[in-house]
């Protein structure tokens, strides 16, 4: 096979130590000695030197020139991969079988004071690359078929996030199974009245989402708990307890949308002791009843004081729960419109309403007459009253004075905290949890995907989120899960590109041309000994019952551990097989 070498002098910085003509002669002599004077022609006839291979015009011109001369493979020698090598390789590898050799950082620049040694080393490096090209060309060039099983996605939780996710998955043609622990779907939506910004009620939104999900053909399992999910080679195994009793099923991917739990202000602010001290959820229910006509508006509090950050941002729940301020303002607006004769004051430490819609909500609240007072958290506010609540005493943060606001209701805004069952599921999946107990995804690169392949997390299980955010995240997780199920972004490309590719490029730009094939196992050479499956760090190698070992292309990250332990070479990385490495080693050491 005719090969060509594109040699970059890097504007003289490489050629100062490695003059191109001396290198060409050394290479020629090396190849001639390998093939003998009487033997076949040296397999490298083109040696094209240019001064800046990273410039597109130069690399295009060089490539066209060597391809026109009949070369079928190209070895480009220049700087290191992380400098300009990767980008140049992306271009070259798109047209022909190509290999990159670093002769700058790896040779010219570290051996400036040993030019003879550097020349010998550079000749070795080029020979290694040429031998690797020869070996890589010997295997089939077409990309192997994407080998991964196509099964189902398990969505755990039938709240807004889970419903949005299952509906989106169904619309994308991915088979989804939705498990909900209660008899009715909808999660928190069933308890919420009007939702911002659409101002439809929670049950109405739930009905919409459920209709979508049922219409699209998602398999819905109500009254089903998931008592354990764990990664197994080839996917995930879940134990479902539903109407058929305990059932074990295999899934390809899992979406954790199991939600979070609202904290009740027990033991705080005389909740349960004084009538009129309510939780936000209780107020939500009252407002809902009035809005649907079941209750009189006059039953609502006239002078309501909303207290924010109750049981939040303290030692027990040391975080801002993100949904309480929007919920308070939304309920304050509703209360103002239902009881225009009364007053609503929100007593807060800070108001957290980031983003376009929540900013609009804030302005709407203040425009409708909701009063806002900020209190100094150093002094804990106090509910005053004997049997009924009569007021709230707090220290005003602006003027530093102790103030008493008369009130016939004090509404405590409490945070969402992780559900113990969610934590257990996260634990069995091997997900990390942060200090607050919520399962971690790989922010910011992969906001809904934790580190294991095929696991996705959305909604309040991930972090307290408003209903709108739950819907967005649910759809994001569905998009990611669908892409995963189809192997998009995983190792599925062909092996013509450089074997060693910076991984971050590949993750951040999944439609990059340089996608590499996953490891594969040759069934004829495989003895099913299982060494590869035992050492695979991703659980990508698995053993189907009736065949040899297989590799799930979606989980494979091409680390090469399987190839390192396989005694026969059945497991290999296409493009950088043991044979290719063997050829490199031989060229590196044989002279």
């Amino acid at each position, binding site marked *: 096979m005719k090969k060509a070498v594109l040699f970059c002098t890097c504007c003289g910085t490489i050629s100062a130590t490695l003059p191109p003509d001396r290198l060409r002669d050394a290479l020629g002599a090396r190849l001639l000695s390998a093939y003998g004077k009487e033997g076949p022609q040296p397999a490298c006839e083109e040696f094209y030197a240019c001064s800046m291979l990273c410039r597109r015009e130069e690399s295009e011109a060089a490539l066209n020139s060597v391809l026109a001369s009949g070369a079928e493979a190209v070895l480009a020698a220049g700087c290191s991969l992380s400098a300009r090598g990767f980008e140049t390789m992306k271009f070259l590898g798109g047209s022909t079988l190509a290999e990159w050799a670093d002769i700058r*950082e790896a040779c010219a620049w570290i051996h400036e004071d040993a030019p003879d040694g550097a020349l010998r080393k550079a000749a070795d490096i080029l020979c290694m690359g040429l031998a690797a090209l020869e070996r890589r060309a010997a295997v089939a060039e077409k990309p192997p078929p994407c080998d991964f099983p196509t099964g189902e996605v398990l969505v755990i939780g039938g709240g807004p996030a889970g419903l949005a996710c299952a509906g989106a998955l169904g619309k994308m043609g991915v088979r989804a199974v939705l498990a909900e622990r209660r008899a009715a779907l909808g999660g928190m939506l069933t308890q919420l009245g009007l939702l911002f910004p659409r101002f439809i009620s929670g049950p109405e939104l739930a009905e919409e989402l459920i209709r979508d999900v049922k219409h699209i053909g998602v398999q819905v399992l109500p009254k089903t708990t998931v008592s354990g999910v764990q990664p197994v080679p080839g996917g995930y195994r879940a134990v479902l307890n539903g109407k058929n009793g305990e059932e074990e099923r295999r899934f390809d991917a899992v979406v954790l949308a199991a939600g979070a739990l609202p904290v009740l202000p027990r033991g705080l602010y005389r909740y349960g002791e004084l009538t009129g001290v309510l939780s936000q959820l209780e107020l939500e229910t009252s407002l809902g009843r009035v809005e649907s006509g079941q209750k009189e508006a006059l039953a609502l509090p006239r002078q309501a004081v909303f207290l924010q950050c109750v049981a939040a941002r303290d030692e027990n729940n040391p975080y801002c729960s993100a949904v309480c301020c929007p919920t308070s303002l939304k309920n304050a607006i509703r209360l103002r419109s239902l009881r225009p004769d009364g007053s609503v004051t929100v007593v807060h430490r800070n108001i957290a309403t980031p983003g376009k819609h929540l900013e609009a909500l804030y302005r709407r609240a203040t425009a409708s007459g909701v009063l806002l007072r900020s209190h100094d958290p150093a002094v804990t506010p106090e509910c005053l009253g004997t049997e009924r609540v009569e007021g709230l005493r707090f220290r005003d943060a602006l003027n530093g004075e102790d103030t008493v606001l008369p009130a016939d209701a004090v509404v405590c805004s409490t945070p969402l905290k992780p559900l113990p069952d969610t934590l257990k599921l996260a634990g069995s999946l091997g997900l990390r949890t942060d200090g607050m107990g919520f399962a971690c995804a790989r922010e910011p690169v992969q906001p809904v995907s934790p580190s294991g392949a095929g696991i996705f997390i959305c909604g309040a299980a991930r972090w307290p989120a408003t209903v709108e955010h739950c819907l967005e995240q649910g759809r994001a997780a569905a998009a990611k899960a669908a892409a995963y199920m189809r192997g998009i972004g995983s190792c599925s490309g062909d092996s013509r590109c450089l074997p060693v590719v910076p991984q971050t490029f590949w993750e951040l730009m999944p439609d990059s041309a340089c996608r590499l094939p996953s490891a594969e196992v040759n069934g004829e050479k495989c003895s099913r000994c299982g060494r590869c499956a035992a050492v695979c*760090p991703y659980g990508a190698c698995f053993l189907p019952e009736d065949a040899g070992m297989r590799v799930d292309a979606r989980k494979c990250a091409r*680390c*090469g551990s399987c190839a390192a*332990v396989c005694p026969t070479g059945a497991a290999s990385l296409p493009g950088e097989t043991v044979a290719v490495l063997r050829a490199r*080693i*031989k060229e590196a050491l044989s002279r």
Partner: protein
Amino acid sequence: MNPSLKTLVFACRWCPLLGAERAGRERLALPPDFRLIPMECAGAVSPDLILRAFADGAHGVAVMGCHFGGCRHNGANRSAHTRLQLLSAALEAVGIRPARLFVSWGTAHEARQFAGVLSDFQARIRALRKEKDLPLLRGNFTPGHDREMRP
């Protein structure tokens, strides 16, 4: 002319290779006798290839990977460590000098660290150049021994 004492260095392309590239950018001087092969992960280095490298003419083989806890591939370096320890035991059992196989899990992507580690390794290999384990390493046998085997 000094005969070269070639060594083969497998460098994982996450930490050690970045160190190597930085050493290049800082123009640190290194002995030219080593041949570097970048690997996706140090866990991809097959002990069989290391044995083959010794037989082919390497005076020493180094495997450089990321520190424990820092492997991008979910700790594949730990499995690699177990394998390479076994390889080291095998070489030691037949009398190959242990310094010939150098495994480093401590490299971060720092230029001077890479240069220092590699230079030290080359120096240790140079000190072994006249050792008696070389014939076994290469498979160089007494000439004519096979005459006794022929019928």
